[in-house]
C-alpha cells in the first residue's frame, strides 16, 4: 500500500446472494472496484440510485464483506475494529436511541470510540458547538427534527477527531442554508487535515468541494475525474457525469 493512500480498494466486488427454495439469485452490488484516496483529499462518489455508492461505503466500514478483492483502510482490513478509531461515519439517515438525549448519545459514542473520560466533556462541547446544537443537547432525541438529527449525526462523526471522514449522502434533504453549512464544514474539516470520502447525488456540491470524483454506474466505477478536468467550466462535471451514465447504459437521455 502506498503510504500516502488512506484508503485503497483493489478489484473489490460485492455480490449479494439470496437463496430461496433451492434457487440462488445473485445481485451485483459492486464489481471490479479499484481506486485509492490520498491523505488530505476530498473524494466524492457520484451515481444514480442503486449504482452501488452505499455498498462501497459499507464495504469500507466493514458493515458488509467483499465477495472478492481487497480493501485497506490505513493499511488495515476494514474488519479490524480498532482501526475504526480513525473513521468518522455519517450515514444518510442517522438513527439514534430515542430515549437518550444528545449529550448522553455523544457521551456513549465517545466512550466507545476510546476517548478518555477526562477529555470527553470538552470534546462533546466542541462537537456540539461546531454543529450549533448546544441549546438542544439535553432534550431526548425523539423530540428532534430531521435537521437536528443530521447535526447530531455530524457531531458523533467528528467527536473523536478521526483523520478519515465517511459521509453517505450528507447533503440529501438539506435546505439551502443547510447545504451551505455542510459545504463549509467539509471545507473546514479538509483544511484541518481530514480526508473526506462522501457519496452524493448532488453534482454541484461535489464540484465545489471535491479534489476528485468517482462516477459509478450499475455497480462499476466507470470514471474518476480530477478537479482540473471540470474546473473553470460551469456545468462541465454534470456533462461528464451524464455522458458517462449514458455511455455505460445507466440511463437513456432523450
Amino acid at each position, binding site marked *: 500500500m502506498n503510504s500516502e493512500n488512506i484508503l485503497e480498494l483493489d478489484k473489490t466486488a460485492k455480490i449479494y446472494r439470496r437463496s430461496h427454495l433451492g434457487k440462488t439469485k445473485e445481485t451485483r452490488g459492486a464489481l471490479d472496484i479499484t481506486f485509492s484516496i490520498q491523505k488530505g483529499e476530498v473524494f466524492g462518489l457520484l451515481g444514480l440510485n442503486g449504482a452501488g455508492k452505499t455498498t462501497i461505503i459499507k464495504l469500507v466500514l466493514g458493515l458488509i*464483506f467483499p465477495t472478492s478483492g481487497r480493501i485497506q483502510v490505513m493499511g488495515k482490513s476494514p474488519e479490524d475494529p*480498532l*482501526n475504526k478509531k480513525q*473513521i468518522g*461515519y455519517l450515514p444518510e439517515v442517522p*438513527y439514534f*436511541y430515542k*430515549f437518550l438525549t444528545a449529550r448522553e448519545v455523544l457521551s456513549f459514542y465517545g*466512550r466507545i470510540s476510546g476517548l478518555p473520560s477526562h477529555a470527553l466533556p470538552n470534546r462533546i462541547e466542541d462537537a456540539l458547538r461546531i454543529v450549533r446544537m448546544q441549546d438542544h443537547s439535553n432534550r431526548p432525541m425523539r423530540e428532534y427534527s430531521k435537521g437536528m438529527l443530521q447535526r447530531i449525526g455530524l457531531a458523533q462523526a467528528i467527536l473523536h477527531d478521526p483523520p478519515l471522514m465517511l459521509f453517505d449522502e450528507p447533503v440529501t434533504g438539506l435546505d439551502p442554508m443547510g447545504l451551505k453549512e455542510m459545504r463549509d464544514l467539509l471545507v473546514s474539516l479538509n483544511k484541518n487535515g481530514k480526508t473526506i470520502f462522501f457519496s452524493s447525488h448532488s453534482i454541484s456540491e461535489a464540484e465545489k468541494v471535491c479534489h476528485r470524483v468517482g462516477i459509478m454506474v450499475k455497480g462499476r466505477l466507470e470514471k474518476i475525474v480530477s478537479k482540473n478536468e471540470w474546473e473553470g467550466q460551469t456545468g462541465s462535471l454534470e456533462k461528464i457525469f451524464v455522458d458517462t451514465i449514458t455511455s455505460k447504459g445507466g440511463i437513456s437521455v432523450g
Partner: protein
Amino acid sequence: MASVLSIIHYTFIQQSRNHLYMVVILFGLTMIAASLLFGAVAGDQEIEVILDLGLAVTELFGLIMAIFGAVTLILEEIESKTIYLLLTRPLPRSHYLIGRFFGLLLSIFVSMLFMGVFHLILLFVKGWTLSATFFVSFPFMILKISVITALALFFSLFSTSSVSSIVFTVLFWLLGHFGTELSFLANKSKNAISALGTKAFLFLIPDMSVMNYRDVFTLAGPHWTQQFLWGSSYAFLYCLACLFLALALFSRKEF
C-alpha cells in the same frame, strides 16, 4: 473492557426506560400478591405455598423478560439501524454482544430483586420465619435465567423472525426441565435409533435440573454450596457455548 461496560450501561438504561419492562414488573408483583389467595386455602401449608409460588412467579417473570428482551435486543437495533453507528466505531462485535447480554441480565436481575423484596415483605407480614432457602434459591434462579437469555440471544440471530426465536427459546426451556423424563424414555425405548436420537438431543438442550434448587431444596442431596458450584459451572459452560454460537453468526452478519 470500557466499551463492554458502556454497552452494559446503555442496555440497562434502555431496558429500564422501556414501558413494557415496568408493566412486566408490576404484573409480577401482582401475581406474587395473588399467591396470598392460594396460601389462604392451603391450610397449614400457607407459608410454604406463598414462599414457593412467589419464587416460581419471580422466576417465570424473569423468564418472560429474558425471552422477550433477548429476542428483540439485537433484532430491534438492526431494524432501527441504530446498530450502524455502533459497529462503525472501534467496537469489536464480541464486545457489543457480550455487553448487550450482560446489560440485559443486569436489568432482569434488578427486576427480580424488586419482586424478591416485595415477596420477602409479604412473607414477613404472614409470619414467616427467616430461612436461608429463599436467599439460596435466588442465585440458582439467576443461573437458569442466564442460560435461557444466552439461548434466546442465539436464536434471535439464527432465526429470521422474532416469533420463531421466542417459540424455540420457550421450547428449549420446557425441554430443559424434561431432561430426566427424556432420558428415562430413551432408556426404556426398544428402538435403538430413537434412543440414540433422544440422547443426542439431550446433549443440546440445557439441563435445567442442575440449577433447579428452588424446586428441590427439601430433597436429600449435597449441601447447597456444592450444588451451586456444579450449577454455576454448568451455566457458565452452556452460556459460553450459546454466546460463541451467537458470535459465530453475528461476526459474519452483514448490515
